[in-house]
Structures are given as structure tokens and as C-alpha cells.
């Protein structure tokens, strides 16, 4: 079952042995290669469907990629709601004794239909389609996209860029305090 409002448990990417510290307790780690591949995948979905808008997030509601027109702030809120919606629906399934391998929530609107679907345990798709697009076709594509996405994040990128985190600083505490003070306008 997917993991609402948290990034995944479990299938963290297995980075090479000298950097095991990157396999995080609750987190997934997205490398540039992953991101590019997921982005392309979403692009294909949008084209083939066709879909005026689609979004991919992790199960915590963290936005990964989107296609179509939306404002930035709106997107962050939307992703958190999509994750909440899916999590509630999964929990409903669990409480009513329905163990479902995957979830797909459909809303039918006057102009658009919208789908929320899980892609493995860690990813979520939100896709809007025109009313005329056959539901079965959209569903097929969304599920296909979900499976592909799972495969993408399962693979370890061949070359992991060396990026210095630079947060191993003694004055981390002060840096955070300053950053929050900067944020605060009172």
C-alpha cells in the first residue's frame, strides 16, 4: 500500500556501496536520469491520450512533473490533495477488507474526466482527459504509464553525479535559524 504524505517506504534506490548513506529511511531519491525519464513518460501519456493536463507526484504529494497549464502555487496544493485523496481511498479499501493491488479513482465532469492512479507504492498520477476520450483508453494508458514509471525508478542510474551535499556543517543550526528569520516578515 502506498504511503500517504510521506515519501515511500521500502524500495529506495540502491546506490553503489560506497554511497549507501543515500538510501534513506523513508525517502525516495530521484536522480536527474530518473527525472528526465519520468518527464518524457508523462509527455507521451499526454500526447497519446490526449490529455490537457497531467501531473506526477510521489505518494507524499511532492510534485515530480506536470504537463499542461497551471500556476506554480496551485500545483503544490493540487499535488498534496491528490496524495490525500488517494491515501483516503486506499484506507477505505483496507477498512472494507478489499485488498487492491492498484487504485484508480475516476471523476466524471461535464467537460473533463479526471483520474487519480497509483504507480507502484511511491508514485501517483493525476490525469485530466476530455469528456470525449474513451475511459477505457485513458485507463489503459494511465496504467501502462504507471508500470513504466515504476520500472524507471527501480533502475539505478549508471552514473550517479557526485554532488556535495555540503550540509555537514557545524553551524547548521545557525544557518537554519537564519533561513527561517529571512522567511519571516512578521
Amino acid at each position, binding site marked *: 500500500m502506498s*504511503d*500517504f*504524505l*510521506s*515519501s515511500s*517506504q521500502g524500495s529506495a534506490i540502491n546506490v553503489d556501496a560506497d554511497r549507501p*548513506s*543515500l538510501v*534513506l*529511511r*523513508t*525517502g*525516495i*531519491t*530521484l*536522480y*536527474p536520469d530518473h*527525472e528526465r525519464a519520468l518527464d518524457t513518460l508523462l509527455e507521451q501519456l499526454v500526447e497519446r491520450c490526449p490529455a490537457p493536463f497531467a501531473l506526477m507526484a*510521489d505518494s*507524499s*504529494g*511532492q510534485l515530480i512533473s506536470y504537463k499542461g497549464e497551471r500556476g506554480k*502555487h*496551485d500545483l*503544490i*496544493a493540487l499535488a*498534496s*490533495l491528490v496524495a*490525500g485523496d488517494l*491515501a*483516503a481511498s486506499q*484506507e477505505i479499501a483496507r*477498512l472494507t477488507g478489499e485488498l487492491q493491488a492498484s487504485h484508480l479513482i475516476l471523476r466524471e465532469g461535464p467537460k473533463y474526466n479526471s483520474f487519480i492512479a497509483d504507480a507502484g507504492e511511491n508514485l501517483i498520477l493525476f490525469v485530466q482527459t476530455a469528456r470525449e476520450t474513451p475511459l477505457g483508453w485513458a485507463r489503459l494508458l494511465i496504467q501502462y504509464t504507471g508500470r513504466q514509471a515504476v520500472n524507471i525508478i527501480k533502475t539505478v542510474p549508471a552514473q550517479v*553525479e557526485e*554532488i*556535495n*551535499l*555540503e*550540509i*555537514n*556543517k557545524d553551524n*547548521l*543550526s545557525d*544557518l*537554519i*535559524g537564519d*533561513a*527561517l528569520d*529571512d*522567511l*519571516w*516578515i*512578521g
Partner: protein
Amino acid sequence: MNINWQHRELNLKVVYYGPALSGKTTNLEQIYKRVNPNQRSELVSLKTHEDRTLFFDFLQLELGKIGGLTPKIHLYTVPGQSYYEASRRLVLRGTDGVVFVVDSSVSRLNDNVAAWKDMYSHLRSFGFDPDKMPIVVQFNKQDLPDALNPLAIKNLLHTNGKPVVNAVAVRGEGVLDTLKLITRAVMTNVQREIA
């Protein structure tokens, strides 16, 4: 927590937990009002017609660069009313840190204790050791005439050395201090994990 290497973003999750009406939503509303609008998302509130949290509130803050990373903090509140237990557990899942918002009113003593225990058992059920989870305790509503003094609350909840903050969240007092403390605690944990 998740890290996006492409954008060098570190995404952290902090949950405001506590009994019904203790002021969890108020904390997020105050933060929303008082931070630079360019560095925050919209405030998402899933609430009842009576303005009680039904599922969660959500607000994302984006800090300036720290070292090589831009930390983004996802703040959530849980619904405090007892019958929303299942939703509370969902929201708490996968969190990197918790702010426990106490209602300091003497009449809410038992509710605080019940919520505290509840939080511990949820954290354990996810396989966390609650004593290793960064937790900051906010003694909110210190303005009430029947507010318990902080020492009494500490003893009651067995806060065992966890950072505490006195607050009057409706007036914004203690809200930033709480946020600073929990962010520091969470980042220190992250530092240990990925350094």
C-alpha cells in the same frame, strides 16, 4: 524525506499533532500570514463547515539555500477530534518530525495526555522509535487564565528533555520559535543520515 538531485531539493515533512482545538491549524495560519509569500505555497485546508480540520491542513515553505541544498518543508496538521483517528494516522505517516501542540488549559489535561499516548503508539506502529523522532512540544494558549504552567505539563507528559516552547498561537507568539526548533531538529537528523 526525499531528495531531488536535479534541483538539489531536500523535502521534509513536519506534522502538527495534538488534541482537538489546541491550535494546530492556527499555527499554520499564522505561518502563512507571516512568511514571505514568494517562499510559501497556498494554505490547503480540508475542514468541516464549522472550521474544524477534517483531514489535514498543508503549507509548504521554501528556505533559502543551505549548503548545497534548498530545503522545502511540508507542514501538515492532523484533525484533533477523537473520531478522526484513522485520518490522523494517515497524515502522520512518513513524517520527519512532529510538533505536539498542547492546549494548556487545565480543563484539557486528559485530552493532552490521551493525544500524546496516541501519537506514540502511531509512531511505534510505523516502526519508529518515538524517542528518536524529532519532537518539539508547544505549550499553546498560555494566555488562558487557567493555563497550566509549563513545568506541570512537562511532568504530566514526560517530555523528557524534548524542546518546549511557550506560545499564544493566535497572536503569533512562539510560532516561529517552534518552527525553528523543529526544523533544526529535523535537519540535524537528516545530517546524521546523509552526511
